[in-house]
Each structure stands twice: as C-alpha cells, then as structure tokens.
C-alpha cells in the first residue's frame, strides 16, 4: 500500500440531485470548474427547461434539428442503451412519463396523473434518428435522457478530471484510477464498501421519485410505471453509462431473470425485491 495522496472533494446540488466529486491532486478551483461543466451540460440535456436543446428537439418533432456534440453523443448513447437492453431502456417513454404525472422536477411536486397518454413506447430507432450534427424526433414521440445522461456525464467528467478521481452524479458513479492509496476508491453499495478501480456503479429504484402509486420508472412494454417485483437494483460495471443501463434493465426484468442477467453483465450487484422491501 502506498502513502495516501491528497484528495480534493466538492459537493453540490445539480441535475435535481446531490453530486460529489473527488480527485487526487486536483485544486478546489478546478473542482468548482467541474461543477460548472455539470451545470452547463445538464442545462442542455434537461427536459424541464423549455429552452434546453433537448426540449427544443422534442418541441420540433418531425424536423431535423442541429444538435451539439454533447446532445448528439447522448442521443447515440440512448440508442446504444436500447440495443444493449433489448429495448427495455427506451428513451422514448417521455409521453408515458408525462401521463404518469412526471411533468416537472420532483422537488416541485408531481403533476396530474392521467395515464391517458400512456401506451407502449415505440422502438427508439423509430422515434429518434441521429446523424452527424443533427437529430430528428418522430412526430408524436418524445425523448427523456434521464439516467442515461447522468451516467454519460459521470464518464465524460471523469475523463476531464484526470486519471484518479470519482464522479458521483446522484448515484450514477464513475471511479477512475487507483484511488488515494492505490487500492481503489471506497464506494458504498447496499451497506457494504467496495473498492472500485476504473469501474462504474448505478442504482435504479422505484422507491424514489414516487407519488401515490406512480413513479418515474416507466416500463416501455406497457407505458406504465414498472411493477416487476423488484424495488431497487445496484450494480458495478465497467462504466457509469453501462451501470445505469444494466441496473435499469435488471429492475425491469424482475426477480426471476435479473440474477442471471446481472451475473452476465455486472461485476457486483444488489437486488431488492418486494418481499425484501
């Protein structure tokens, strides 16, 4: 074990959640700049601000719209997540999210639950097309990047912060490098501490962002809030983006299929089902 290196840390609220940054040998000023990066990119990708790039793309459905490199990369990541998950992680569930009452940031309280617009989501490649510098959302469709964006941002920001850091954006987490003592970064998961080294972690849950019987996690197969028998799933994988996709997929698969799925895709996993809860 080598001597412990100096770790800088910075905590702030953004993306509607708590964020934490840790890095070896990185000044507080640089960590504050990293917070600004989160806020700047988050402002482009949110669906809660009508002027955001994503909101503008959704508002002009049917038209090819210019998109920034960051939004383009996130949209491509959403398409990749759809492929990776066999369609279970589908960014085209926005109409169902709105019908479920998730019309504004959760801190402002839920909207009205109608479920009138809830229907099985279209296959994402039918709802979203991306080409270099441009994207088009199909008429009647809508895109929500949600956790995909947080995982993507954790991965990208960790690249910007250097070779030895942790980025935690509301539980979507990327650990890079060997940590302050060369043993990895100590990260909590389900009450245990795991040493992560060049790995990502994420938790998907139906216990938070919940109002009444509704919650934010939409099952694209039904268009309704998911009820699969699992309440919460945490995983460790190679990246933050992959962890987000695997955790959400496992939760949507339910308690019968999730263990085998996690065994094939995750390095560590925690499953909490209805009976456990």
């Amino acid at each position, binding site marked *: 074990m080598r001597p412990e290196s100096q770790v800088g840390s910075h905590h702030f609220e953004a993306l509607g959640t708590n964020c934490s940054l840790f890095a070896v040998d990185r000044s507080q000023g640089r960590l504050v700049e990293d917070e600004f990066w989160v806020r700047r990119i988050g402002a482009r990708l949110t669906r809660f601000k009508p002027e955001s790039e994503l909101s503008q793309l959704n508002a002009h459905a049917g038209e090819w719209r210019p998109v920034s490199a960051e939004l383009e990369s996130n949209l491509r990541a959403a398409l990749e997540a759809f492929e990776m998950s066999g369609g279970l992680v589908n960014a085209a569930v926005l109409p169902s999210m709105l019908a479920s009452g998730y019309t504004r940031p959760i801190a402002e309280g839920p909207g009205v639950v109608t479920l009138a617009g809830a229907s099985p989501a279209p296959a994402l490649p039918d709802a979203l097309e991306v080409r270099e510098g441009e994207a088009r959302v199909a008429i009647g469709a809508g895109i929500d990047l949600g956790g995909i964006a947080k995982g993507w941002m954790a991965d990208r920001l960790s690249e910007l912060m250097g070779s030895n850091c942790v980025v935690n954006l509301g539980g979507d987490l990327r650990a890079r490098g060997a940590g302050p003592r060369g043993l990895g970064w*100590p*990260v909590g998961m389900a009450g245990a501490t795991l040493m992560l080294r060049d790995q990502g972690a994420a938790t998907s849950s139906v216990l938070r962002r919940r109002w009444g019987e509704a919650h934010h996690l939409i099952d694209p197969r039904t268009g309704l809030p998911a009820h699969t028998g699992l309440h919460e799933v*945490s995983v460790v994988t190679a990246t933050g983006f992959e962890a987000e996709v695997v955790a959400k997929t496992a939760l949507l698969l339910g308690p019968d299929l999730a263990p085998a799925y996690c065994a094939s895709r995750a390095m560590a996993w925690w499953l909490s089902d209805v009976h456990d809860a």
Partner: protein
Amino acid sequence: MRVFLVKAVATALTIGATVASAVFVTSHLKNPAAPLQPSVLNAGASTTALGGTLTVGPSVQPTNEPPMTSTYAS
C-alpha cells in the same frame, strides 16, 4: 525411398505444427479478468444486505473501510 521421405517430412510437419500450436496456446492464456466469463462461471459470494441480496464478483474487492461516496437511488 522417395515415398518414405515424403511421409517422414509430412509426419514431422504435423508434429511440429501440433507442438507449435500447443506452445502458442499455453503462452496466450485467456485473460482471467475478462468481464463476462468469470462472472458467469463464478458469480461470486452472495450475502444478504439491507433487505436484498448482494453479490460481489471476483473483479470487485470488498473492504471494511467507510465509503467515501455511495451509489444510491435519487
């Protein structure tokens, strides 16, 4: 004589190729840290934690240290 020579050379080539292949394979073992195979064949230790089942594969090291940060639902 010529037929015997051809057979001998063919046999020698076959044995040589077999030995060379064996040496190559044993010196290029599959990476034991590859993410898919070990986690499927050896899923790791499962324990009950916080009302759920926590499984830790061989590529993740548990520790008794307090965590610096955590993954959680937000």
